């Protein structure tokens, strides 16, 4: 059977994407469906599954303090982390977008470095900094401000503060890279025209730079949100989930329920809820982009 030239092409096409497709089906689609499926059961992965319908979900929202606290903690975390990470990234991208400065590469490398460092190492550093007795922070507070030693890990609010500071320190680089690249890609003609018209710096920022940056900001918003909602290692390493679960972000809770309590079914239901939440928010962001994102088409 001689295949036509076109069909032969098709064959190669399919062949080359075969592995990723198989991988996607096996490692992504199948687990996703399994997770949904498991959420309707009670299961500890050893004994057979035990169908309980919506009981997992019922339990989650009515009786289980741990998961509810975790949801609340995650929402609080997201509410602060996302805007601040994007804000800092944007701020530094704007300031460093100045070719006249020497040593720019130093700052750029510096901002990105925490991102490429393992969260374990990051946590090791910051645990030492926040150490109640000999940490840098408490020392500064005591020596320079005459305040009192703060135990950063005993109060929920303090612990959350620690997690946020460290995660923002780390996450700035991510938004910075994208925003910086976006800034670089704004065509210079706009600024030339603005200079000819006598626009001031602030006007340039508000009328040219920011509007043209909105596609990049949107990209960063979506990515940072999805990334932040999946934060796992930093809270685990810094606070272990916080005083009485106060800093247990959702992923941490899922991990704990699945691997420490052994309740795979319940963990799956928490994961499913989170997934749909993320999906919903992302979809909402995509819908809302028409209102504020400026694609130059």
């Amino acid at each position, binding site marked *: 059977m001689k295949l036509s030239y076109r069909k032969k092409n098709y064959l190669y096409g399919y062949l080359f994407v075969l592995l990723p497709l198989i991988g996607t089906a096996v490692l992504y689609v199948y687990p996703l469906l399994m997770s949904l499926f498991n959420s309707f059961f009670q299961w500890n992965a050893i004994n057979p599954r035990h169908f309980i319908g919506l009981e997992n979900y019922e339990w989650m929202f009515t009786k289980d303090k741990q998961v509810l606290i975790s949801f609340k903690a995650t929402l609080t975390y997201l509410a602060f982390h996302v805007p601040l990470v994007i804000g800092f990234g944007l701020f530094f991208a704007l300031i*460093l*977008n100045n070719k006249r400065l020497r040593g720019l590469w130093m700052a750029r490398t510096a901002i990105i470095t925490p991102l*490429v460092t393992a969260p374990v190492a990051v946590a090791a550093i910051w645990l030492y900094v926040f*150490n109640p007795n000999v940490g840098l922070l408490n020392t500064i507070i005591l020596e320079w401000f005459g305040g009192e030693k703060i135990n950063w890990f005993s109060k929920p609010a303090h612990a959350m503060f620690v997690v946020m500071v460290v995660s923002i320190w780390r996450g700035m680089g991510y938004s910075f890279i994208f925003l910086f690249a976006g800034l670089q890609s704004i065509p210079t003609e706009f600024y030339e025209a603005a200079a000819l018209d006598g626009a001031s710096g602030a006007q340039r920022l508000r009328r040219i730079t920011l509007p043209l940056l909105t596609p990049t900001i949107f990209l960063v918003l979506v990515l940072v949100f999805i990334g932040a909602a999946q934060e796992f290692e930093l809270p685990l390493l810094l606070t272990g989930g916080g005083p009485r679960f106060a800093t247990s972000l959702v992923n941490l809770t899922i991990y704990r329920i699945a691997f420490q309590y052994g309740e795979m079914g319940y963990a799956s239901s928490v994961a499913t809820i*989170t997934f749909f939440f993320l999906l919903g928010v992302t979809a909402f962001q995509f819908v809302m982009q028409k209102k504020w994102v400026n694609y130059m088409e």
Partner: protein
Amino acid sequence: MAVKNAEHSYITRIESNSRFLRMLRDVAGYVSIALICAVIVLPFCWMGLSSFKSRAELFEYPPTFLPGRWTLGNYLSLFVYSRIPGKEFRDLKTAGKIPEDVWPTAGAFNESTMFQSYANVIKIFAFSVVGVIIVGGLAGYSLAKIKFPGRETIMLLLIATIMIPWMVLLLPQYLLFRDLGWINTHLPLIAPSLLGSAFSAFFFRQHFRTIPNEIIESGLMDGATHWRIFWSLMMPLSKAVMATIFLFTLMSKWNELIGPLVYLQNPKKFTPVLVIYYLMRAVGNENDPTATGLRLAAATASVVPIIITFLLGQKYFVAGITQGSVKQ
């Protein structure tokens, strides 16, 4: 004057009577650079320097920045003496055969060494990166240059997988690997790269789209198959992309904690990051100087290789990320 300055960034294009303002902007810029470097780099410096401090000095108050007395005790504990089981260690120490400032590691690390963890992570990384580049490259090529039905759908599907939060996948993947008997091997850590790599495929695709079709067409007319074209034409042109993916994969595999945490139980198979994690958990808490010293040494030992690699490959890293978002 406005036109002459057109090549500079927008900050430079101020009306000329604001030379003072311009200087102010530059000063603000330099101050920012200094601040950024300080806020970011200082903690790392402190970690690195502190890893050379003795147990007593680590918990001195007020804390010092530079070590008063440089000591290798932490590193010796981590790399050299961590192999020795508890009792033997104590006997050797009493007999004076082990230096004063070396302390025992506790728990699981009597058997494994940090060295082994380096070997493990390099092995995982090597397989992963080869897989990611080949599989991703082929897929990217096909998605970019070969027209076949369903191509767009497949691409969307691949991209969508990146968006699935991993927590949803963690449990079923774990169960799948358990049924395959792959727990406690390095296979579950390599498999996603060999099979998944949607990111890599997408990246290659974007890159291949910039290559003119004529090259491929003339190759096809000369009787070459797509396979041949891929290896002799496409890949040699993709060195920058390969370098970028190399770095990305390195970052992600080196720093990965969740995968090794869930799938590896034998300390002999741990990765450096996992070693640090267990050190943080098993060896006392933050108020234990022995633990802190070891942790700092382990953290430094795992951060330094990455930072060096990153500094060397920095150009590709930033270029690689920007390639995705700069308007075509």
